[in-house]
């Protein structure tokens, strides 16, 4: 049993660990309350520490890169959905800001070890892992673990340190420094994006083991409990209400949405039902059909190239047949995860996480692959290797298209017949990428680097933004995604903000500055950007708040009005307003952006959307027929809302001063004093 809570606590442990892998030493910093009031926790701590402690120009794969693991301010406080940790560092894929987050049970274990965050600098000579609990931390030899896959590593470490121990580790992909490598926990969950597994591998850091028992204290425990209970009731209450009224309620709401003068949309409740029943896999077939999913390396249309008869083979119901149980992350009442067992087909798997939509699409729809058993096997391979399934699927798609167009031959592929939907060849190629063998070595760092090495016009098929392969949502379907892929400090992100995500989040219910999203959008309105920048920027600030709290974004999209601000205030004892929290969210967003600026990156110039993403040339068929997005107009709108100069990317000095980021001024405006 965990020990009792610290009665003096305010949601945070007040301690940040720094491990120097060169010397093997461990030190601590104990920030004061102002620090937490400035950046809260989670990604906020990551942004602040990386800004303060890193120098520009550091090699992402060198000892100067700082790799951080952060827990949220609300982690283990009694708030719901608070099970995510964020990994931060300079991304080898983009050369700029990198972050990735993941759920499961690692985050609370880390916080119970008495730290809010820990950072690694330097490079170990030999493989090591960090063990920590509330008594302290030490680096230990990991020679016997090096070479093991993520699930085997976790099993070994939990046998060694007890079941309480929670493990985050890299697999062979990270060890081999593949830029597509992520960091895994809880038996194959993965903080996948930004290539931070490669950074961990470059430091010869195999794993973190957290086995702490210290509970963080909060300012007003009863209030947090009451808020969480009421929120949980609201989430459950909808179900009961629906059982009673069912179609009548939805019919009435729908009628109002269509006809009435009021804005009464309820999609979040539907999203909750879908997620609890099928998880994100629920979207696979319908997204392929609707145009949300990219098809055939972003050049096809689901309706004709991957029609419903095929996409349903990898859709929600097909996947659900293999479910053995549902599970939820720490403090999550939604439980959108599931474990699968595959006993039929050529690749039996005893236990595996249900593949997410992104995986099903990247290894299915994107490759015109409807072989569900192959996708299950690939999901298991990538989870064990610790590799991002989005980037891997996109890289395989790139290779197939190079092969189809004669840029790669059978001699290059070691005899593999790389064709759309050839699941055997797809599996073989994925294994080569994981092992960095033959063509796999060339592809293991993603499409940008692969196309630079291959040349011969292959960049036409290398779909990426700033080096990062885009996720499985086509901005031609929801242009909000395009704005986020292009302008966010970590490009190619699908969970920060988009029109659809804003619809679900209903920010106007929490923040006075936010406006309702429109009930309907005509095509003209959908592709108009000048009036969307503000909403998208607010969406980013909100997302930063969610990440600072260590919360799951799905908790904010399923209705029930997550009491985010009230939780923060109850945990810390502060009395900040909704607007003041948005300022913190913006501060973190601006810090991440400033990190990129300091590295010489201006997103609008360096994170260009690949022509296929924007529809240049436009598709001649399908839901996005004839659509070409205007990334410059998107950037103009977002930059204006963020106060960034389009040419330099620099934020307005007055804005930085308002956010209390005066220390950024001397770096970004070296020849001017503050305020000039």
């Amino acid at each position, binding site marked *: 049993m965990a020990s009792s809570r610290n009665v003096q606590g305010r949601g945070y442990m007040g301690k940040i660990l720094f491990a120097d892998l060169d010397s093997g030493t461990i030190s601590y910093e104990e920030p004061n309350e102002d620090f937490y009031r400035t950046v809260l926790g989670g990604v906020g701590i990551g942004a602040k520490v990386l800004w303060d402690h890193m120098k520009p120009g550091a090699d992402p794969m060198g000892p100067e890169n700082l790799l951080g693991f952060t827990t949220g301010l609300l982690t283990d406080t009694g708030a719901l959905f608070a099970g995510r940790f964020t990994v931060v560092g300079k991304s080898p894929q983009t050369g700029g800001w990198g972050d990735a987050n993941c759920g499961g049970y690692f985050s609370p274990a880390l916080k119970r070890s008495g730290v809010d965050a820990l950072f690694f600098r330097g490079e170990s000579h030999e493989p090591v892992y960090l063990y920590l609990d509330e008594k302290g931390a030490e680096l230990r030899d990991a020679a016997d673990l090096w070479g093991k896959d993520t699930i085997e590593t976790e099993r070994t470490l939990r046998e060694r340190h007890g079941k309480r121990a929670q493990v985050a580790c890299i697999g062979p992909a990270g060890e081999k420094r593949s830029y597509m490598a992520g960091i895994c926990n809880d038996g194959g969950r993965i903080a996948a994006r930004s290539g931070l597994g490669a950074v961990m591998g470059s430091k010869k850091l195999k794993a973190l083991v957290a086995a702490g028992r210290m509970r963080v204290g909060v300012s007003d425990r009863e209030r947090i409990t009451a808020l969480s209970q009421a929120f949980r009731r609201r989430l459950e209450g909808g179900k009961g209400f*629906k059982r009673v009224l*069912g*179609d009548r309620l*939805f*019919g009435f*709401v*729908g*009628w109002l*949405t*269509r006809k009435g003068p009021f804005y*009464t*949309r*309820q*999609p979040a409740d*539907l*999203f909750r*039902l*879908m*997620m609890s*029943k*099928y998880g*994100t896999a*629920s*979207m696979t*077939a*319908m*997204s392929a*059909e*609707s*145009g*949300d999913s990219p098809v055939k390396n972003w050049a096809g249309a689901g*309706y*004709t190239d991957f029609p*419903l008869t095929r996409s*349903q083979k990898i859709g929600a*119901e097909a996947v659900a047949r293999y479910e053995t149980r549902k599970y939820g992350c720490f403090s999550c009442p939604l439980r959108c995860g599931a474990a699968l067992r595959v006993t039929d087909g050529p690749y039996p798997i005893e236990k595996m996480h249900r593949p*997410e*939509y*992104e995986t099903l699409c990247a290894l299915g729809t994107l490759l015109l692959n409807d072989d569900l058993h192959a996708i299950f096997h690939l999901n298991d391979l990538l989870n064990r290797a610790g590799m991002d399934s989005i980037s891997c699927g996109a890289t395989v798609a790139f290779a197939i298209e190079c092969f189809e167009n004669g840029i790669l031959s059978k001699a290059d592929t070691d005899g593999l017949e790389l064709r759309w939907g050839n699941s055997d060849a797809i599996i073989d190629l994925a294994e080569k990428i994981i092992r960095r063998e033959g063509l796999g070595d060339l592809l293991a760092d993603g499409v940008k680097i692969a196309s630079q090495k291959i040349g011969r016009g292959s960049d036409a098929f290398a779909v990426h933004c700033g080096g990062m392969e885009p*996720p499985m*949502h086509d901005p031609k379907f*929801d242009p909000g*995604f395009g704005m986020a892929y292009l302008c966010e400090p970590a490009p190619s992100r*699908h*969970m920060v903000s*988009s029109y*659809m*995500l804003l*619809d*679900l989040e209903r920010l106007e219910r929490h923040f006075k500055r936010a406006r309702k999203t429109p009930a*309907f*959008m*005509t*095509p003209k309105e959908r592709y108009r950007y000048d009036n969307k920048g503000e909403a998208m920027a607010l969406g980013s600030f909100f997302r930063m708040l969610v990440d600072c709290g260590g919360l799951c974004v*799905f908790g904010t999209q399923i209705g029930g009005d997550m009491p985010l601000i009230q939780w923060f205030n109850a945990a810390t004892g502060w009395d900040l307003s909704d607007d003041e929290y948005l300022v913190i969210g913006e501060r973190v967003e601006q810090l991440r952006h400033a990190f990129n600026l300091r590295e010489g990156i201006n997103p609008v110039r360096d994170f260009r959307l690949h022509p296929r993403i924007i529809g240049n040339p436009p598709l001649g*068929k*399908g*839901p*996005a*027929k004839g659509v070409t997005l205007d990334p410059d107009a998107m950037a103009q709108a977002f930059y204006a809302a963020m106060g960034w100069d389009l040419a330099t990317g620099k934020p307005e000095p007055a804005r930085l001063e308002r956010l209390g980021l005066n220390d950024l001024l001397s770096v970004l405006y070296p020849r001017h004093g503050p305020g000039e």
Partner: protein
Amino acid sequence: MPPRSNIRITARVVGHIDGESVNASGVVELNAGGTIRDLLKQADRALGVKKQKPFKRAFRQGVRPVVLLNGDRIELPEENDRVLSDGDEVSIILTLAGG
């Protein structure tokens, strides 16, 4: 008076309606000159799913359904009066984004 000719439209609805996974499709006969609005009015009955009413309920979910005519996106309610031709395919898709 010449006999009234009919047109045959393939209609499909797919997605999640009230939390249930729905996939209904079939052929709907309309009078020549029939519109999308006519199709949506008649589809549930014509496909024998009048009780479940997926075509009707799809537009009462609050999310904007994606409507495809022969695979290309059209906008409803703006294009409700679009006239259909024999052999057209209309898909109603309810979709949501996420990871």
